């Protein structure tokens, strides 16, 4: 089993950048919140033995899929269309297509865009703390604000960045998000 910090870095490296793929798949089940499934899946990942996982996104998708099935089993009223969708997904590909596998350059470009889209107040704090590497105390001194404000703005930036990760599209002009079946993309 990986220790907690290492596990968090593993999640940061393999799951967070590709989370949107599973999220867009979850969007087809209107009976519950995608957020609930994603959060529960993170908990399962935090307790699973991930040291031998060779396909993290596929593993994450399988966990989410099992959670969806479990939710539907619990539910009193089940959408027939959703169940049909779920049954069809028994053949879903466990791996994102090549263009979905995040490379370091694309990831950096994404982060650069995200930072630019942060509100000004959050952006300056985020840049000082995460890019320039100052401690929160030093950020407060440099920006002339209280440490409490720095913490609040960082938290706000983190929420916004989480949202960007959840909704990201690598190439919005020509790459629709969605899972693949076999070697073909599903819209």
């Amino acid at each position, binding site marked *: 089993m990986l220790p907690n910090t290492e596990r*968090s870095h593993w999640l*940061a490296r393999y799951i967070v950048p590709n989370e949107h793929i599973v999220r867009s798949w979850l969007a087809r089940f209107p009976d519950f919140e995608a957020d609930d499934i994603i959060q529960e899946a993170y908990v399962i990942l935090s307790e699973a033995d991930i040291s031998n996982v060779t396909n993290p996104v596929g593993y994450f998708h399988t966990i989410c899929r099992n959670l969806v099935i479990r939710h539907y089993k619990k539910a009193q009223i089940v959408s027939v269309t959703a169940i049909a969708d779920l049954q069809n997904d028994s053949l879903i590909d466990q791996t994102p297509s090549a263009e979905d596998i995040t490379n370091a350059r694309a990831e950096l470009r994404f982060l650069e865009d995200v930072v630019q889209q942060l509100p000004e107040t959050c952006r300056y704090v985020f840049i000082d703390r995460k890019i320039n590497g100052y401690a929160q105390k030093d950020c407060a001194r440099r920006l002339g604000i209280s440490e409490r404000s720095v913490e609040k703005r960082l938290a706000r930036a983190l929420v916004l960045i989480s949202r960007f990760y959840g909704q990201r599209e690598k190439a919005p002009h020509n790459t629709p998000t969605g899972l693949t*079946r076999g070697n073909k993309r599903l819209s």
Partner: protein
Amino acid sequence: MATKDSPDDVAAHWVAHIDRAPLTEQETQELETWLQADIRHKGAFLRSQAVWHATERAKALYTPTLAPFQRTQKPSRRAFMSAAVAASVAACVIPAESGEARTRYKTQKNILHCENTKQRQIVLDCYTQLEEKSEQTSLLMGQCFITDKHRCVRTQNLRFLIDGGLLLAKGSSYDNAVVVNGTATMQGHRLKERKHLSVGAQVTVTPQGRLHFSTVDQDTLARLTAWTQGQVSLATETLSEATDIFNRYNQKQLVPSFRLADMRLSGLFDLNRPDVFAQAVKAILGGRITEDAHHIFLE
């Protein structure tokens, strides 16, 4: 996603707070209580931590105003002399190319990278035999992937001059070739003139000895060459067919039950990890895994 006081909001505040200073005993207790209250709280917290770590990459965007002075180091006299001596020794042992030289490669349950340079790459699939001569490469049996420039590559029935990558297969009753990248020129086999082939072109010699030309798309090309990366790309094969593929590459044999044998699945898997594949089958198709020293039973 994150509304005021949503789990995402609260989790982000905790992560930012932990980054500011270590938690007091009371704060640790508060955090623990919040995490235990709802499984979604714990999930949101883990996700926030992971996003926090994911943004570490942003450090690469740092552009210092004053770049640190970098000294351009000249090699020391000793290093220079060592390199010169090494070069002279290397020059003495490099064999001269001989027209008679031939090397035969043979694989069993393994994939072999017998050449891997910038210009030249030869990868042999399992149960393959290949002969290398100075003027040409001949596939005697099995399947190989060759990338080269102006190289003659052949099977018993097909002959190509390649300038790129070619996937070549030779079975007991058929020959098959697919241009994976670059171009290839086909020669011989009762062709009146040379035929130029581009990416995706496929040539098959049927058991009746007829030539059949077709084209495959990029997705299929990627699937056909997945084994060169030690992977298998399944596209709705039955479990029975899939286990046959894995069993060719591994000592530990997968044995599907009668119930599962005809079920189909897709995905990209590591050819050398039948155990991981078995876990995926269990997760996707349901069932039970048992194993002994030489088999993994999927029931």
